């Protein structure tokens, strides 16, 4: 099921400690810079996968293991506020 970044607002709040959907992420694969709220998000998986809307590459992955949410941001070249 495909959603947009708003669907993981709560997860990101828990991991980063603040509102993230208005931050800008730069895709490490294609260089496109867009608001986190615009990422294509796949929630129904062993983890949460956010993909670049332009090229489809994975930009963020959240995995909850033993009560701790780990986030992998290797798919992002940059993550910055507006």
């Amino acid at each position, binding site marked *: 099921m495909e959603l947009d970044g708003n669907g993981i607002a709560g997860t990101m709040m828990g991991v980063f400690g603040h509102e993230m959907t208005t931050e800008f992420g730069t895709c490490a694969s294609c260089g496109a810079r867009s608001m986190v709220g615009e990422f294509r998000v796949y929630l*129904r998986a062993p*983890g949460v996968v956010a993909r670049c809307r332009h090229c*489809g590459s994975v930009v963020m992955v959240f995995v909850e293991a033993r009560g701790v949410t780990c986030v992998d941001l290797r798919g992002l070249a940059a993550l910055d506020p507006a």
Partner: protein
Amino acid sequence: MAISRGFQGRRRGDADPTRVPPGQYVTDDFPVLSAGPTPHTPLADWDFSIRGAVDRPVAWTWNEFLTLPSETVTVDVHCVTKWSKLDTVWKGVSLDTLLDGVETSAEHVLAFCDGGYTTNLPLEDVTGGKAWVAYEYGGEPLEPEHGGPARLLVPHLYFWKSAKWVRGLELRDHDKPGFWETYGYHNYGDPWKEQRYQGD
């Protein structure tokens, strides 16, 4: 923990512990989980290949694949997100059939798929009647959202190892973690030992 009065959730009670691994619940549904969009490869473009640390790579087109000897199996499947589905019926080609005649000293396999998904397994876990490339579920052609036209089926491990939209196996001398294994899931994934995450 705040209990929600009257909430049951979508699952069945009374799991048989000889059939349902620890921490799992049985479901009647077939949940769809995916890390990306559903690929739609035309069958005319589809092939299944075995390559990598082999003497000669082999590949089958869809029509060739359907002429291979197939089996219908009834298995239980267990997803790491805690649902288990019992007595699921699949039809497919055994990996023993596909690997028959493939000369290799490799011990590891990396399954690769349309959409970029991968998962790794020991070669001995996909041989000896333990794994199939399945193209029918419940007597019908496998639907795209469940991995159609064909997916890997390895029921003795957590279901993320049963890679959807599988296009082949890369045989390897050295193990290489696949998609979920890279993001923290267990490298092997035995549901009976609850090997969900790295370090379990």
